């Protein structure tokens, strides 16, 4: 039975689906052709190569086409498509439409495929003799990505998930909305009932979400390149040559993925409310794991290039890094983390598809490595103990070990699924990760430090020990000062060791940097990158270790009986009534009001810093916001005051000032109902100049005057309308209100006025001509109706080290890329 649905725009979807099929077909064609072009022994036969390039370009066009179609659908709010309905809404500004683009699995797969296509274009242009074997691997990966988007039924099993699936195909509209079931006419016109989409998760409505996913996925995508070079090197028996170009691409991947990870943590810090920048969530770990391995790989590749040592470590780590990218994508996308992670994707029915992806590349790497094992260049001699290569190798191994730990813990649900065990993640995961990862970080930071004083092959031992010890003593002194000032000394011993290590690493690399400025420019990139890394460590350690919750409730007033029984739980959330100041740390904090700019509800929280005489030294306003979202409940985002040396972070957990759909609330209030929100009214007879007291201040009647117009009610010549001019003074603030009394056509009316900020309502209920007084009826909201917020505030000291360290690290890696590219060119000239 074909139903002729009204109002659907099917063309962009059909076009998009066509592009998906084209992307898959062309990627497959290109993979096969590149394979035969590589194995072809006839150098003059370019037919396979040409075919492969045609396939590749077609794939690029198709991937861009998918993107354009999907964007068109979301941008034009074509809610007949599930993806647009699920992830966007009409009220979404354009820049968030971009982030809704990759909120779903499909969009993020597309993003990955897009970056891989871009990198493919760079390789086709630059890789020269490497193009055929390297592109074979890249296009194989591209084929798999395209297959994730295809979304067709095959033998009763859906393969991939397409972003162009229609809403009525994805959901059973008839089941969820009975009216469609009863009346086919309604069902035919179902689109007219779907006014708006689900909208973007409020947590993702943050500018970092526009830029963080593309960066992260560029990082993931670029990790395929070193992998492809390593495979190509094994395959083509060019065992040594692949390393040089792979170093440049690895540097790029490390830089971009590292930036992406930090952007993600900055987003978490800015807009999530777990109160920090890193929580060791499986999703965060999943992006950190491949990064750590590739950083290790990079160092041993450099070792190999300079000394011929560590070949096996280098190739294994490079191969592992990309397999781990795929494993990470399996972890986050298959739904297996369900019970252990807050923000993993749910299963979109691609579990085995994702497993196949990992296994395919893992097997490819293992088989090739096994086949070529005997032929690989190995060194008979051990490295010298006092040589840079040996300790760089040790460092790489330790990075791999730290990653090993992350994999073991993050994969606990996988072990459970595989072995039927019932292990749960550590009860205090943050502490567990912190302690163990810190131990590895100690080793790594010390290595970053003293390896700088070593030379490749052989080092002058006496000189090495003298410089090392001098710098170490120096680092220890600075650390002592730093931990004393910041209070880090209260932490676990291992964190103090990292502090020494990180400062030592900074100092040692600062020396290299100084030398580099004098002429040995080669090492400037690595020195800068290492300094940046050291600063990241210092910043992370101080801010996470000494962050202090200042919204502690020390008054003891709100302790319930149950609570007193519990032993000293830190009380981190504080209740604040509107306009009632609370002392919090060194600040006097007041919740002063609200401002609503749909869909956000901002809570205005005023911070005052008083000096000894009670004068205001500093005053600022933070506006943490929340969205009352029908789907997700109250979603709050923090607001942060940034100082140079510390941040003050505030967010609202709960409030009675916010209601669902407050933007749309109709003005039609039922008068009688409205009065119920107030205490019983009190009547005052007042003359101009009189005051009326109320709980939080007083009201002054400043005058009575004629009113010319009231909303849209015409006032005729014999009608009378007078207003009572009231000045409400509460907590040092003044508000005006003018309730109106009117006689129209011989009957009396009155118009009440509200001052919501103080919870008052006034009626000008009567005129008493005898003593020229008027009657004001005062409605006051009961105490329990008073607006309150539950707030949490945290102080993060020295967090700017973390952010600035990241920027410095990126600059350092960038400098290294320039240097390696220069070397590449030189090598080519010599050849």
């Amino acid at each position: 039975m074909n139903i002729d649905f009204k109002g659907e725009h099917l063309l962009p979807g059909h076009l998009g689906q066509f592009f998906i099929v084209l992307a898959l077909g062309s990627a497959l064609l290109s993979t096969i052709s590149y394979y035969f072009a590589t194995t072809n022994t006839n150098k003059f036969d370019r037919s396979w190569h040409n075919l492969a390039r045609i396939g590749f370009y077609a794939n690029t066009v198709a991937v861009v086409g998918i993107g354009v179609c999907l964007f068109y659908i979301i941008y034009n709010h074509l809610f007949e498509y599930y993806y647009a309905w699920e992830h966007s809404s009409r009220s979404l500004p354009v820049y968030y439409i971009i982030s809704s683009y990759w909120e779903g699995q499909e969009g993020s797969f597309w993003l990955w495929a897009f970056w891989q296509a871009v990198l493919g274009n760079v390789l086709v242009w630059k890789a020269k003799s490497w193009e055929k074997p390297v592109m074979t691997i890249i296009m194989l990966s591209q084929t798999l990505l395209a297959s994730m988007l295809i979304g067709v039924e095959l033998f009763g099993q859906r393969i991939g998930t397409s972003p162009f699936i229609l809403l009525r195909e994805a959901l059973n509209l008839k089941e969820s909305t009975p009216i469609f079931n009863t009346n086919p006419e309604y069902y035919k016109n179902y689109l007219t009932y779907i006014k708006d989409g689900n909208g973007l998760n409020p947590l993702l409505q943050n500018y970092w979400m526009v830029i963080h996913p593309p960066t992260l996925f560029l990082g993931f995508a670029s990790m395929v390149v070193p992998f492809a070079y390593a495979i190509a090197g094994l395959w083509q028996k060019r065992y040594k040559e692949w390393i040089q170009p792979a170093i440049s691409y690895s540097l790029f991947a490390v830089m971009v993925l590292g930036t992406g990870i930090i952007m993600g943590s900055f987003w978490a810090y800015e807009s999530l409310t777990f109160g920090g920048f890193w929580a060791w969530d499986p999703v965060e770990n999943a992006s950190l794991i491949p990064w750590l391995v590739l950083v290790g790989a990079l160092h041993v590749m450099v070792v190999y290039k300079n000394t011929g040592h560590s070949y096996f470590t280098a190739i294994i780590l490079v191969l592992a890094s990309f397999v781990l990218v795929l494993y990470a994508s399996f972890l986050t996308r298959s739904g297996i983390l369900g019970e252990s992670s807050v923000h993993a994707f749910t299963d979109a029915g691609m579990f085995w598809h994702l497993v196949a992806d990992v296994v395919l590349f893992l097997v490819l790497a293992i088989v090739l490595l096994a086949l070529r094992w005997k032929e690989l260049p190995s060194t008979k001699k051990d490295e010298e103990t006092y040589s840079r290569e040996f300790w760089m190798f040790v460092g790489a191994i330790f990075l791999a070990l730290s990653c090993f730990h992350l994999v073991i813990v993050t994969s606990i649900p996988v072990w459970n699924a595989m072995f039927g065990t019932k292990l749960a993640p550590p009860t205090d995961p943050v502490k567990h990760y912190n302690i163990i990862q810190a131990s590895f970080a100690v080793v790594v930071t010390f290595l970053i430090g003293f390896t700088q004083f070593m030379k490749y092959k052989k080092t002058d031992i006496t000189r090495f020990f003298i410089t090392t010890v001098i710098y170490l003593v120096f680092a220890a002194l600075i650390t002592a000062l730093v931990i004393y000032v910041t209070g880090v000394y209260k932490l676990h011993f291992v964190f103090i060791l990292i502090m020494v290590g990180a400062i030592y690493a900074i100092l040692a690399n600062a020396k290299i940097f100084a030398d580099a400025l004098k002429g040995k420019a080669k090492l400037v990139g690595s020195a800068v990158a290492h300094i940046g890394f050291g600063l990241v460590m210092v910043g992370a350690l101080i801010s996470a270790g000494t962050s202090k919750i200042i919204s502690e409730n020390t008054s003891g007033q709100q302790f319930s009986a149950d609570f007193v029984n519990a032993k000293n739980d830190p009380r981190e959330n504080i209740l604040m009534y509107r306009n009632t100041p609370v002392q919090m740390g060194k600040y006097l904090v007041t919740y002063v009001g609200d401002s609503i700019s749909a869909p956000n509800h901002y809570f205005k929280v005023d911070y005052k810093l008083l000096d000894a005489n009670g004068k205001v030294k500093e005053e600022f306003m933070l506006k943490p916001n929340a969205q009352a979202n029908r789907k997700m409940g109250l979603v709050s985002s923090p607001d942060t005051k940034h100082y140079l040396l510390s941040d003050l972070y505030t967010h609202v957990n709960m409030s009675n000032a916010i209601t669902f759909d407050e933007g749309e609330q109709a003005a039609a209030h039922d008068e009688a109902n409205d009065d119920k929100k107030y205490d019983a009214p009190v009547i005052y007879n007042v003359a101009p100049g009189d005051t009326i007291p109320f709980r939080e201040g007083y009201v002054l009647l400043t005058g009575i005057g004629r009113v010319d117009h009231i909303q849209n009610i015409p006032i005729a010549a014999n009608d009378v309308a007078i207003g009572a001019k009231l000045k409400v003074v509460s907590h040092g603030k003044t508000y005006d209100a003018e309730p109106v009394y009117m006689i129209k056509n011989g009957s009396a009316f009155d118009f009440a006025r509200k001052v919501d900020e103080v919870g008052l309502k006034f009626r000008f209920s009567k005129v008493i001509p005898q003593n020229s007084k008027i009657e004001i009826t005062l409605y006051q909201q009961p105490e329990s109706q008073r607006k309150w917020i539950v707030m949490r505030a945290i102080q993060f000291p020295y967090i700017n080290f973390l952010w600035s360290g990241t920027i410095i690290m990126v600059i350092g890696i960038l400098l290294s890329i320039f240097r390696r590219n220069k070397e590449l060119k030189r090598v080519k000239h010599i050849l």
Partner: protein
Amino acid sequence: MKKSSIFGLIVIAIAIAVIISVYSNSSTYGSFNDAQKTNSELHIVGHLDKQKELFYDATKDANYFSFYMKDNKGEECKVVFTGTKPQDFERSEQIVLTGQMIGKEFRASKILMKCPSKYTQDKVEITEAKAKEASI
């Protein structure tokens, strides 16, 4: 013995140490009954008893939230959580608690809950609430 072999042994030793420490740190999924018997923290999976009272009153104590949960074996227990009430708690269809028994109450340090999405039956959302952020 060659230096690389010594180093290899050290690496293997560290790897084993890591596995052991993860294993000993990892907790288990259990029931309220198991929680009675042990002093260590554990995870309990169950669902909210919607018949009984959910208590949270920010004006009395913003950091106290209590409710009753039935674990997967059908046993019921009062749960006290030190913190604000997680949003949409009433709608949760599955809860994973982390914590331990204190007297007759289960004191949760972390609540992970799964809610049915309002619009789609096939999709499940997860939210998490933590009693306190551990400082390192």
